[in-house]
């Protein structure tokens, strides 16, 4: 039992820190830390820098071009990147579809797709949710009909994140409408430039364009773009969801936010006195920090179990629920910390070069937008209610 990182883990952390100091462009980290809007090119330019170093797919094994890091090393890497203000890894390719292609894809699929995910040539997005298939994903109705060596895809996907940046989409489609719900689904890889694909942006609560509806109208998809067997897609989808939990607790980002929040509370005045002197606010801050400590140690327990090749099982189910809640709590405290300054809605403040006025700091107009945006965290990747169903059924046996 040892809470401290080992000497080799500390050396690894120092190596990551050195790399970030040298290679993370200041203009990019300023955007991330200043809560500015990130463009496709911002995200891709960071991906390419990581690719040069061989670190663009931190979770991949060596045989597919990853660094072959242990679970603990991946955690350290994620944490340091977040603390330094690096843009997030584009997860749909690297962390979601890639593990499925590695595990269930054909050799041709592996050879074609994996190097392009690694280099950033292909940006991936996800086609899971539908208007009538959210938490009940298996009730999806987007249809793929076999016509010779093609499928013809018709239907609609929704809540598709950053599809307007994407080159490819991985989709769950119904290939056998007669079979029981989960047994008639296949997993298709679809080129976003295929004729018949239309995107409609869904403006979100914070005014930003992050998600889309996607319409498929007689879209032709080669049978060779199906992962594994026909009608076995649900198995692959579940495998993907299992991989989604890597870094799901977002410890590094939460630590960064918390530290900013503390600095802000020490600086920001309330009736002329630092907000930090307000016991009610400070106690909330203390409780948020304590919650984060508990979550971080739970993450460590999961990593330790993985290193010892023991199934972490129970502990890992906690991560999504608490990680999402903590992100929301911190964003709410940030908004609360600036008092009246939570009110102004200034979309141009999300672009570099905007000049703050009226006594506000540069990034303040982003706080409320961020609070509204992060309400998504308890809804996406299996809502926190679905997560509780999973704990009740699978872990507790209710």
């Amino acid at each position, binding site marked *: *039992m*040892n*809470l*401290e*990182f*080992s000497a080799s*883990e500390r050396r690894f952390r120092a190596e990551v820190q050195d790399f970030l100091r040298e290679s993370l462009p200041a203009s990019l980290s300023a955007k991330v830390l200043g809560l500015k809007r990130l463009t496709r090119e911002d995200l891709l330019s960071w991906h390419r820098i990581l690719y040069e170093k061989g670190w663009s797919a931190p979770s991949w094994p060596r045989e597919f071009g990853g660094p072959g890091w242990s679970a*603990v090393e991946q955690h350290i890497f994620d944490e340091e990147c977040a603390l330094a203000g690096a843009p997030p890894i584009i997860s749909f390719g690297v962390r979601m579809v890639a593990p499925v292609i590695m595990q269930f894809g054909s050799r041709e699929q592996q050879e074609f797709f994996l190097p392009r995910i690694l280099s950033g040539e292909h940006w991936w997005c996800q086609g899971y949710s539908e208007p009538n298939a959210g938490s009940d994903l298996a009730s999806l109705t987007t249809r793929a009909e076999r016509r010779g060596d093609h499928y013809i895809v018709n239907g609609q996907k929704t809540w598709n994140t950053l599809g307007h940046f994407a080159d490819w989409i991985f989709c769950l489609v119904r290939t056998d409408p007669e079979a029981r719900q989960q047994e008639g689904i296949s997993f298709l890889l679809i080129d976003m430039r295929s004729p018949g694909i239309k995107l409609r942006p869904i403006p979100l609560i914070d005014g930003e364009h992050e998600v889309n509806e996607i319409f498929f109208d007689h879209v032709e998809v080669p049978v060779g773009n199906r992962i594994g067997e026909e009608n076995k897609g649900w198995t692959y989808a579940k495998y993907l969801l299992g991989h989604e939990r890597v870094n799901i607790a977002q410890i590094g980002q939460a630590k960064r936010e918390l*530290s900013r929040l*503390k*600095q802000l*509370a*020490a600086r920001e005045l309330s009736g002329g006195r630092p907000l*930090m*002197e307000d*016991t009610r606010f*400070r*106690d909330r*801050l*203390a*409780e948020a*920090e*304590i*919650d984060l*400590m*508990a*979550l971080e*140690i*739970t993450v*460590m*327990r999961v*990593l*330790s*179990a993985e*290193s*010892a090749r*023991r199934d972490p099982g*129970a*502990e890992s189910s*906690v991560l999504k*629920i*608490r990680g999402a809640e903590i992100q929301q709590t911190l964003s709410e405290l940030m908004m609360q910390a600036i008092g009246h300054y939570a009110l102004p809605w200034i979309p141009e403040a999300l672009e570099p070069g905007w000049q703050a006025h009226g006594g506000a700091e540069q990034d303040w107009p982003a706080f409320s937008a961020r609070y509204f945006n992060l309400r998504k965290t308890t809804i996406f990747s299996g809502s926190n*209610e679905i*997560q*509780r*169903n999973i*704990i*009740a*059924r699978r*872990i*507790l*046996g*209710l």
Partner: protein
Amino acid sequence: MDFELTEDQAMLRDSVRRLISREYTFARRQAILGSPHGFSAEIWNLLAQQGIFALGMPEDAGGYGGATEIMLVMEELGRGLVLEPFMSTLVLSGSLIRDHGTVAQRAQLLPKMARGNCRVALAHHEAGARYVLDHVGTHATRGKGFYVLNGSKAVILDAPVADLLIVSARDESAGGLSLFLVEPGAEGLKLSPYRTQDGRSAGDLTLENVKVPTAARLGSPGFALSALEQAVDCALAALCAEAVGAMEAVNESTVQYLNTRRQFGQPIGRFQVLQHRMADMFLMATQAKSMSYLASGRCRNPDRSERRRALSAAKAYVGKAARFVGQQAVQLHGGMGMSAELPISHYFKRLTMINATFGDVDHHVGAYSDLLRTNVS
């Protein structure tokens, strides 16, 4: 970074768990609870044979292991709802004597304590102090070769079953707090014993011109506050671990109840509102265990503010979890949760009293929060 147990640690945990589940059935515990002191010498001796009183003791006193082993044993004592005064003797008093005793005091007491042959209670808390450690009105006046103690102590855990007391007093000659080893039968010492809500023994003490030799002073004169802080931090870690063990037992038996109790033609565990409550209880207990690990890992950290941060964070979190899990376990058991004939109500009482011992949630959130004022990073 490593949370795996060594083989020896796993063996210790398993053997204590086996002993308790064999010897400390709920019926047996209820019988002990009904006995005059709420304490069984037979169980105490069985635990002593298992070697658990030697944990954290110096090797020359027959000791072995440290904070992790104590944590594992406390989890099992919590799981078994064991009433015997392990924490007072080993964790609080044991660490005070080990860290601050003279060669003679250590040689005289530690080997006996490690074998389970001497129970020691800490008489510190006084009216008006609440959870503040340096609020002590009992005073010690120094004479030639002796001290005279006067004052009163309140809610002293395990005092009625102790063979020896450690009494804190304001040391008039030194200008700070000092500690004294006092025999329970000393002249001028009066104990009013009672039981606690959760079945332990405790009592109030009055000291009227209690005379102790200078050699009975434990540690340097006037410097007891930091010694007490350290000992109480070890006790906080032990309490966190005990609460974790109790919460795990409560959750297991609540799941079992939800799966067997039928209403509206089905097991009540089919109802989503109860499933989600149970999931939250599990979640809180899991996180509390993480914080208990932190508490044990840091409870002897020499950096005082780092130790305060960790221990207050842990006790605050575990306290919140203990309250939630305890209350909801009673709620989910319905009327059965109210019955004194089933273990759940007894677990709930223990979890509630752990919260009130050495600082509740508000106290420790406050202590943590105060550190934030000075420590912005």
